[in-house]
């Protein structure tokens, strides 16, 4: 094949001289983690709220929540990203769009757009799982909560959601893995996250195999850690005498 393997590129200095290629990769890793984690927390919050609203006994609220889910679930992630980054700042009212473009640094603009895009896209999927979790509970649980004098919000808070979330830890784990993987799409708006840094490395060093192997391994490490953490969550939340516990 004639390819010259050279693993020492990661230690060599970048053309501008102030650091090494490894530091570039690690800064990409940091951006990927920050971006995905903040988007995940927002997605969890928005998705839980929307998922709950899909199950409340109010037609307008559940219809609104369904519309939200269908909107964010049925548009490709890449298209959503372009809308958040290129279109939204142009059409935001009250000077908000101009403020976004003029007062925030380009880096912050990219990060915010990417974060919101990933968060809303993922929240629609989280919402579906929260809804499925709530609907998987026996119908009598809601009635039992209400019959004890709990208000509807209290019934969700103390009775339905604690069990629903336990049921959906495995699918939520997949969503959490997905958000880290989907974050690579954000390199298309110039955000220097892990995938973008990998491509930059290829451009500068002409060592594509080493570069892509490195970012592949880093993504793998992230996701192994996420899976490990979610396993711990699952084990801790296990209910004695219920579903696959001792």
């Amino acid at each position: 094949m004639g390819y010259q393997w050279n693993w020492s590129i990661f230690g060599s200095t970048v053309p501008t001289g102030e650091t090494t290629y490894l530091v570039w990769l690690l800064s990409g890793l940091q951006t990927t983690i920050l971006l995905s984690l903040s988007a995940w927390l927002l997605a969890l919050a928005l998705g839980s709220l929307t998922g709950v609203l899909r199950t409340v006994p109010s037609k307008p609220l559940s219809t609104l929540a369904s519309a939200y889910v269908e909107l964010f679930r049925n548009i490709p992630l890449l298209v959503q990203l372009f809308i958040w980054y290129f279109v939204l700042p142009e059409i935001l009212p009250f000077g908000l769009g101009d403020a976004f473009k003029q007062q925030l640094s380009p880096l912050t603009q990219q990060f915010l757009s990417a974060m919101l895009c990933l968060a809303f896209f993922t929240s629609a999927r989280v919402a579906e799982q929260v809804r499925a979790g709530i609907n998987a509970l026996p119908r009598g649980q809601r009635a039992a909560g209400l019959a004890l004098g709990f208000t509807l919000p209290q019934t969700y808070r103390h009775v339905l959601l604690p069990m629903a979330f336990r049921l959906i830890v495995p699918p939520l784990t997949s969503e959490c893995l997905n958000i880290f993987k989907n974050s690579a799409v954000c390199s298309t708006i110039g955000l220097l996250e892990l995938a973008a840094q990998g491509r930059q490395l290829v451009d500068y060093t002409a060592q594509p195999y080493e570069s892509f192997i490195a970012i592949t391994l880093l993504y793998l490490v992230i996701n192994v850690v996420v899976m490990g953490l979610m396993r711990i969550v699952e084990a801790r939340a296990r209910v004695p005498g219920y579903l696959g516990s001792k």
Partner: protein
Amino acid sequence: MISIQNVSKHYGTFQVLTDCSTEVNKGEVIVVCGPSGSGKSTLIKCVNGLEPFQSGTITVDGVSVGDPKTNLSKLRSRVGMVFQHFELFPHMSITDNLTIAQVKVLGRSKDEATDKGLKLLDRVGLKAHAAKFPGQLSGGQQQRVAIARALAMDPICMLFDEPTSALDPEMINEVLDVMVELAQEGMTMMCVTHEMGFARKVANRIVFMDQGQIVEDDAKDAFFGNPRSERARQFLAKILTH
């Protein structure tokens, strides 16, 4: 205590309850029976507003259930309810099951609620299981905890929705014993059940339902001795032969 006046309910065009009227006075035990699909569970769920109804009125201790201005949560906290499938909260220990509504709804202190809860748990004979979780108890034990949970709220009356239908035969009696004791202490009770032995022992009146209507509403002896309707006679003949 509970007054049901001309209550009708339909899902779309399907009539579930038609013009049902009956009363439960303070200290009375009423048994509601009838074939499946006759609307008895729906009727009892209307009493604490778990099922809405389109016409008629239900009042509990003078409070109208169907009135949109009624604070239903407050009313429900005063009416105990026991379900066919127990509906304990699986993620909470037995103690937490007994105390959470006392604390969150009645505003009792944790200590007071625990005291009360454990006393009632002792009464249903399950004190040793306080730290366990519902999934670790048998059906009969879970149902007794569910009764204790309802009693912990100091209810003015108790609703039982087929409390023994989901139980193994061996466990039915331990639950019925608790209910009989409760009845003998003077608790106002409305029970949907097919346990005719229980009905004979403690019921004041029997309400017999068929196809969403109250066909018969009689004193216990009259109902078992000489049911007026043909439908009730058939029903009794079927369930009492074995």
